[in-house]
């Protein structure tokens, strides 16, 4: 059994970096290399009411991570995100609009360790549940 391998680090990622246009930056590859998780922001081509509902769900989940001391950053941007976070009493995380993979990787690896680096109840031998 492997121990829990979570990194306690998550990036809110604009859709254009999750589904990059031809030649664009594949942020998922960089995040995987750096050991970060991703929370995808809704694509710009969704109707405003649908995007607003998704942003609300993303915010609710981000709130849970923040209250447990996980590190959150923002890669790119999304109209309405700041307002939705603000309505939940959250600020916009530290942000980068990377020009290339190297810039994003440097940004991620320069982050300080999150407030929570482990949970005492995570068993060393792990369990790996679904």
């Amino acid at each position: 059994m492997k121990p829990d391998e979570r990194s306690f680090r998550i990036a809110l990622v604009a859709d254009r970096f999750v589904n990059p246009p031809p030649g664009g930056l594949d942020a998922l590859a960089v995040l995987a290399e750096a050991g970060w998780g991703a929370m995808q922001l809704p694509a710009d081509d969704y109707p405003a009411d649908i995007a607003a509902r998704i942003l609300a769900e993303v915010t609710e989940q981000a709130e849970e991570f923040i209250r447990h001391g996980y590190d959150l950053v923002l890669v790119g941007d999304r109209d309405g995100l700041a307002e939705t976070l603000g309505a939940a009493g959250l600020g916009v995380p530290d942000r980068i609009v990377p020009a290339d993979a190297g810039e994003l990787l440097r940004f991620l690896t320069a982050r300080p360790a999150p407030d929570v680096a482990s949970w005492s109840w995570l068993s060393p031998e792990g369990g790996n549940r679904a």
Partner: protein
Amino acid sequence: MERREGRAAPESRESRGVAFVAHCLLNQNSKVGDGAHCAGIYSPVVDVLRDRGWRIEQMPCPELSFTGLNRFWAVREQLDTAAYRRHCGRLAAAVADMIAVRAGRGEDVVLIGVEGSPSMGVRITSSDPARGGLPEWPDGTAELTSGEGIFVEELRRELDRRGIAAGRGGETHALPDHDPLTQRAGLETLLDER
């Protein structure tokens, strides 16, 4: 750390369709304690989607926003309350709205869940009607069983109600017979059959 080759999208690639993936496949930090298989992104699934030219859409994690990061491991029966059903129904409606937009544009859609999960299982979920109370149970207790997780079930019902067809498959890391090559082949077949 799982490393993927290449950080730039190919110069030309048409999207073959849209894969709506379980939240934890892009963010293992959302897993129940002791459940994270890697630091963040579960690359074996992402790699197949990239290789096959599928667009990625991340679904919300129903357990994270309902029972939180400190939740216990659970089987279907423990989560299957009226309130959790309503919560999953609300999330499923939001995801179905997104799927409807894609399907309305003629894009193929597949759902990729997490086999063995009480919420995100597609063909295999976790079940034990006797489980409850003090969270201890005998070693070897069988809990994996054929069936859908609660969120996947609600989403399927919502898509059926709207008359939207979507292929469905699951990541198998939590199953005792998990084999990376078999998982990859299964995902490739799911995508290629669309």
